[in-house]
């Protein structure tokens, strides 16, 4: 059928009807989702739930970045990878699962380690970046990519029973004002990386699956709201969600404005190109920990 409502084909009206009915989305929102392009960095505990809801919502184009292969210890929380996908590329495995959910959208598996040499080129093809990564250097890398490309970054993280979520580098599009609002970037909050010995990881400290599950769902929700054009009062801009799954408490805390001395995003920024983030952070850009001595 070629019957349309606005620019939406009839199949899309039917398929996405349950979310089109939501006043905050509507037909116009669905059109925007179908034109939207989202890059998901990390096809793990956060990227699986985020990807599944963005594919389901009919976001036009999804990119999945992961250099890693599926390991049996991933499967408890990384549900796009079935048992049979062990040792297969995570980006490929996730892309395959997402295609079975929605064949109407474009899904690209970027089966690589994101780095200073390839990140800008890949990211520039998308409208929103989801930081679903698992290590400090990649978080600084993605922040600088977001600042340099002016693409907003929806940053989720999880460890043990806790999760955190906020949007960095959000820009308000408003042609009438001279200087449109820009939210803080990761470096506005964290100008220097933490000492490596203070950094926990899922492989060393563990994580309960539904915790990144929850944060990943909320990353997808923020991406949907961002794509349909919800304003910054609705979005987690200059606000951070702090989730403690053990006592099931959530706090939405107020963050600082953009830091006018920020090395990355301020008018006085010194950042002009990507750098060596493993050197900056004195840590490798992965989450490998073979020593399970705690057990």
């Amino acid at each position, binding site marked *: 059928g070629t019957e349309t409502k606005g620019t939406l084909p009839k199949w899309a009206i039917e398929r996405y009807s349950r979310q089109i009915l939501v006043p905050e989305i509507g037909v116009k929102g669905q059109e925007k989702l179908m034109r939207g392009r989202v890059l998901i960095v990390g096809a793990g505990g956060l990227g699986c739930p985020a990807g599944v809801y963005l594919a389901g919502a009919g976001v036009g184009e999804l990119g999945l970045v992961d250099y890693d292969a599926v390991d049996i210890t991933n499967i408890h929380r990384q549900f796009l990878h079935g048992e049979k996908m062990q040792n297969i590329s995570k980006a490929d495995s996730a892309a395959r699962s997402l295609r079975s959910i929605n064949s109407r959208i474009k899904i690209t598996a970027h089966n690589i380690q994101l780095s200073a040499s390839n990140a800008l080129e890949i990211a520039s093809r998308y409208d929103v970046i989801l930081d679903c990564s698992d290590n400090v250097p990649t978080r600084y890398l993605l922040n600088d990519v977001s600042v340099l490309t002016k693409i907003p970054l929806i940053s989720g993280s999880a*460890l043990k029973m806790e999760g955190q979520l906020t949007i960095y580098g959000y820009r308000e599009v408003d042609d009438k004002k001279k200087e449109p609002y820009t939210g803080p970037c990761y470096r506005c909050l964290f100008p220097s990386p933490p*000492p490596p010995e203070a950094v926990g990881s899922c492989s060393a400290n563990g994580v309960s699956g539904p915790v990144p599950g929850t944060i990943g769902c909320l990353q997808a929700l923020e991406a949907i709201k961002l794509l349909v054009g919800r304003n910054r009062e609705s979005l987690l801009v200059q606000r951070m969600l702090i989730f403690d799954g053990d006592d099931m408490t959530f706090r939405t805390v107020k963050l*600082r404005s953009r830091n006018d001395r920020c090395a990355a995003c301020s008018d006085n920024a010194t950042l002009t190109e990507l750098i060596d983030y493993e050197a900056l952070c004195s840590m490798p850009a992965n989450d490998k920990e073979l020593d399970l001595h705690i057990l």
Partner: protein
Amino acid sequence: MPETLKLQINFSGGAELLFDKIKKHNIELPSVRKYLPDSKAEKWTIRELLVWIKGNLLKERPELFLQGDSVRPGILVLINDADWELFGELEYELQQNDNIMFISTLHGG
């Protein structure tokens, strides 16, 4: 104004591991002039609170919590659920019943 200052101190995101794994601490501070007689401080600010925490709550490896006279990079400080940067960071003068939260940022996924 009462003699002591009651605060709730929260640690999360792993910072609690340095504090006997206890996330919520209800504390009562004596007068700052009694506690830090050699300092010029007249009122409790976050700066003096960090000194008190180091002496009274911090159980191990202070370098994973403090750096110089402030918190180490990667710890976000919240005063009543708002970023301490909005209140002058170390200079913020503590008020009765304030909630001060030290959150270690997470990087896992």
